[in-house]
């Protein structure tokens, strides 16, 4: 089915959506920060993906993709590197909802309440 890859991605977004709504992950609501975090990483991975696809290390079965390509990459493969990082951020914020004490404090050079908790010269 040509929608397979696209549906897998849609499934990822759907499965992680409750994290934003129920657990208040606030990833979509802080979309600019999410975008800035994801963009350099997905660009690097896509560049690498592009080279590897050109080199023939892997390829995509035409039966499972919509047929929209950018260069040798199906549109789904490009979306993959947006969807999966978003899912990762949602998971991180979702876990943080339950265990905020597991996060590392901000480094000492940043302002805020954590500064007092960090001894001077710790960094």
């Amino acid at each position, binding site marked *: 089915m040509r929608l397979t*890859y696209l549906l897998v991605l849609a499934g990822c977004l759907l499965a992680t959506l409750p994290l934003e709504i129920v657990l208040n992950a606030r990833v979509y609501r802080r979309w600019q920060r999410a975008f800035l*975090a994801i963009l350099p*990483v997905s660009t690097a991975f896509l560049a690498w993906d592009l080279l590897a696809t050109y080199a023939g290390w892997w390829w995509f079965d035409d039966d499972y993709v919509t047929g929209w390509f950018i260069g040798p990459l199906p549109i789904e493969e490009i979306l993959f590197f947006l969807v999966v*990082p978003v899912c990762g951020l949602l998971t*991180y914020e979702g876990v943080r909802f339950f265990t905020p004490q597991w996060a590392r404090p901000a480094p000492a050079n*940043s302002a805020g309440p954590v500064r007092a908790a960090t001894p001077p010269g710790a960094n």
Partner: protein
Amino acid sequence: MFYTSASITAVLIAVIVDVFLLRTRLLASKLFWATWVIVLFFQFIVNGVLTGLGVVQYDPGVIVGVRLFYAPIEDIGFGFALITLTLCGWVRLGHRAERRAAD
């Protein structure tokens, strides 16, 4: 086994970015590892579907040949790097936002 060495390189880059470049030190937090275990579980499912059905197919010459839930074992390294680097950026930008809010 180009894909194998590339996977190891991706992991090393992620570690260097976290520890030395952005100094987010995510890898020293329980929160990161709890997140990664969950992501890895879903990676096995999603990647298993994609590689099991053959949506993506690999040249056997570039992978070591060990597969876990249909996917080449190397994908674990790439998934790790993708998630780690994204979270490093997210956390780093969060520190910046906190600083700005405090000023």
